[in-house]
C-alpha cells in the first residue's frame, strides 16, 4: 500500500500494464518528453521507449484510427485524448469503427482499446477543457464506459480497462487528479460493479467521477441534519450496475442522481428510468437529477453556476424528501 494522488495512481497503473504485457502501447499528444499535459505518462517513454509510448501527430481521428489498426494486429493500444472537448474529431472512428468492429466481424476482430479522457470542470479552464461527454459514449453500443473517484479505483480500473478485450472509454475526473489515497496494487473487484461509498437509509445519491466527493460531503452535511444518505459511486457507466442501485432504492425509496454533464439526455435519465421501472412500487418520490444545465459549458467565472455542488445536491435531497426546497411553490411557465 502506498499513498498516491489519483493522477499518479493512473500513471502507476499504466506502468504496470506496460510491464505486464508487451502488446500494450500508449498513443497520445505530448505524452512523451512532456509526460502529458497532466503528467500522467511522466517517465513512461523514457522507461519503455518511444516505440511503446508514442507521441502522435495532432489529429484525434488519426490517433484512434491508428489504434484500430494496431488492435487488428494484436496490440492493446491505450490512447490519450488531451481534454474532453477534443474527442469529437475522433467521434466517427470511435462510434462507427471501434464500437462496431467486434460486432461487424462476428467476433473475429477484437478491439481491446482503452481511450483515456481527462474530463469535467471546476478547474477554471478555457472552453473545451471542462466537458463531460460521457453520455455520447454510453449511448453507443459496443463500448464500455468507466470512470473513477479514488486513487485505488483509478489504479485498478485503468489496468482492468487495458486488460479488457472490449473497447473502454476511461474518463478521468481531472479536478480530482490531486486527490490522495492509499493504493493497493493487488486489489481487485469487478470493473462494472458499483460501490456503496457511504451507507444510508433515507435517500440514495447515485453519482460518479468528480461528484463522488461532493456527494460524500452532502451525506455528511445531511447527517448533521438527521438524514441518512447512501452514496453510490457507479464506477461503470456502461454497463450500469443497476442491481446495486436497485437494492439501495428498495431501502430508501428516494433517489437523487448527480452528474456534471448536461441534464437533458444525460446518463441521469437512463438511471432514473431504469430504476423507476425496477422500483416503481418502492419509490416515495420521483427521482431527482442534479446536473449541469442545458447550456454549453460556460466561461470559468460562471462555472460555479453550472456545476452541481453540495447545496444543489442537498436541495434535491430536500425535494425527494418532500421537504421545503428551492422549488417549493414554483410552477413552470
Amino acid at each position: 500500500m502506498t499513498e498516491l494522488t489519483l493522477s499518479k495512481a493512473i500513471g502507476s497503473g499504466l506502468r504496470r500494464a506496460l510491464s505486464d504485457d508487451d502488446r500494450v502501447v500508449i498513443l497520445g499528444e505530448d505524452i512523451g518528453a512532456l509526460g502529458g499535459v497532466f503528467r500522467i505518462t511522466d517517465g513512461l517513454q523514457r522507461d519503455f521507449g518511444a516505440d511503446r509510448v508514442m507521441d502522435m501527430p495532432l489529429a484525434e481521428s488519426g490517433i484512434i484510427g491508428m489504434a484500430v489498426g494496431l488492435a487488428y494486429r494484436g496490440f492493446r493500444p491505450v490512447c490519450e485524448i488531451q481534454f474532453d472537448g477534443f474527442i469529437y474529431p475522433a467521434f466517427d472512428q470511435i462510434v462507427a469503427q471501434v464500437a462496431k468492429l467486434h460486432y461487424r466481424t462476428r467476433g473475429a476482430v477484437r478491439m481491446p482499446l482503452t481511450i483515456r479522457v481527462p474530463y469535467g470542470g471546476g478547474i477554471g479552464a478555457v472552453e473545451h477543457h471542462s466537458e463531460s461527454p460521457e453520455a455520447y459514449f454510453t449511448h453507443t453500443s459496443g463500448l464500455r464506459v468507466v470512470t473513477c473517484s479514488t486513487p485505488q479505483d483509478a489504479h485498478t480500473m485503468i489496468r482492468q480497462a487495458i486488460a479488457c478485450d472490449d473497447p473502454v472509454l476511461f474518463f478521468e475526473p481531472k479536478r480530482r487528479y490531486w486527490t490522495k489515497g492509499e493504493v493497493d496494487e493487488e486489489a481487485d473487484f469487478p470493473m462494472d460493479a458499483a460501490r456503496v461509498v457511504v451507507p444510508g437509509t433515507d435517500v440514495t445519491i447515485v453519482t460518479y467521477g468528480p461528484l463522488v466527493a461532493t456527494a460524500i460531503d452532502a451525506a455528511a452535511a445531511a447527517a448533521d441534519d438527521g438524514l441518512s444518505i447512501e452514496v453510490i459511486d457507479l464506477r461503470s457507466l456502461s454497463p450500469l450496475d443497476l442491481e446495486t442501485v436497485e437494492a439501495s432504492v428498495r431501502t430508501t425509496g428516494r433517489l437523487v442522481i448527480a452528474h456534471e454533464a448536461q441534464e437533458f439526455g444525460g446518463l441521469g435519465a437512463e438511471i432514473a428510468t431504469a430504476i423507476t421501472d425496477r422500483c416503481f412500487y418502492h419509490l416515495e418520490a420521483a427521482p431527482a437529477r442534479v446536473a449541469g444545465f442545458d447550456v454549453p459549458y460556460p466561461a470559468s467565472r460562471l462555472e460555479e453556476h453550472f456545476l452541481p455542488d453540495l447545496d444543489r445536491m442537498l436541495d434535491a435531497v430536500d425535494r425527494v424528501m418532500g421537504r421545503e426546497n428551492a422549488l417549493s411553490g414554483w410552477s413552470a411557465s
Partner: protein
Amino acid sequence: MRTTLSDDSRTDDAVTDTPRRAELPELLMLLNPAGERVPNAEYEPFVADVTGDQLASLYEDLVVVRRLDVEATALQRQGELALWPPLLGQEAAQVGSARTLRPDDFVFSSYRENAVAYCRGVELPDLLRVWRGTAQSGWNPYEVGMATPSIVIGAQTLHAMGYAVGCLRDGVDSVAVAYFGDGATSEGDVNEAMIFAASFRAPMIFFCQNNQWAISEPVGLQAQRPIAERAPGFGIPSIRVDGNDVLAVMAATRQALERARAGEGPTFIEAVTYRMGPHTTSDDPSRYIDPLQREEWAAKDPLARVEAHLREIGVLTDELADSIAARADEIAGRFRQGCVDLADPRPLEVFDHVYAEPHRGIARQRSQYAAYLASIGEAQHEGEQR
C-alpha cells in the same frame, strides 16, 4: 482598427504565377490498349519475371472477377441481393495489385474491392453475405489477410496505417495496403493517414482507384490536380499508373512493396481507371454520366488488351480461351448457388458479439427478447435456421 497598410495602397501589381512544380511522371503504362508492350526501362524490371503462363493466370482472374461481378448484378436484379457495387472496368487495378501481395500482407479496403477479396482467397459466398444482408462482414480477416471492408469512406486508411506501424513494431516485413477511391481523398481521415504514415515510415501502400467518380461527382470536384500529386507534399513518393493495365499496376505495386519491406515507408499509387457501371445497383448514372466519356474508356478495356497480347505471344489459344470461359461460368454457378444457399441469421444472433466479454445489459435484453419471442410463439425459430 489599426491603420491598414492594405494592398490597395500599392500601385504596382506584380501578381506572380503559381510556384512552378515539376510535372509528375506520365501515367505508367506497360501494356497499351492495343495489347502492345510499352518499353519502360525503369518499371519493366518489376514485371520481367512474369511469364506468359503467369500472365494467362492473371487474365483468367480478370475474366473470372468480371464474370462474378456481372453475376452479382444479376443476382441483385433478381432480388437475391439487396445491393451490389459493380467493379466493372476496375478489374486490372484490383487484380494487378492484389495478386502482387504476399499472404502475410494485409488489405484494408472499401466496399468495391471484391476482386481484391477474390484474389485474397475469400470464399465465394463470403463475398455476398454483406450484400444479401445476412451479415455485416463476409469473412474472417485473419484467414485471408484482408480486413472487413469499410463503408465509411476513408476510415480504413488509418487502420492500414496503424496495422503497418504494428508490423514495424513486430519486426516483420509485412505490408498493409489501403484501398480507397478518388472521392475518399477528400476525407480528413485519408489525409491524416498520409501524415501519420509519413511520420512513422509505415510500411504501407495507399492504393487509390481513381475511377473518375464518387457516385455522381466527377473527380474534378475533389481534386484540382492529379491525386498522386498530393502525397509528395506529405513526404510520400507517389506514382500515377494506368489502372487498366494489369502489368503496370503490378509493377507499381511491387515497387511500393519493396520500398515498404526495405524500411523506406509508404508509397501512394493512383490507379487511373473508370467505373464502367453504376455506383451501385441502386444508382442511375444516366442522370450524370456523359455516354461519350464512357465510350472512350470502353476502348481502354483492361481485359481486351491482355487478351490481345496473350494471343499475340501465342499463349492464348481458342482452346485456352474456352477453358477460361468455362471455368468462369463454373465459378459463377457456384457463386450463384452459394448466394441462394446463404442462411438467414437466427433472431437472437442480433445480440451476439456486441462485446467480447460478458455484459450484463446485453445478457438481460437477450433473455427478455427470448421470452418475448416465446410469448408470440416464435420460440421454435430459435436454435434452427429461419
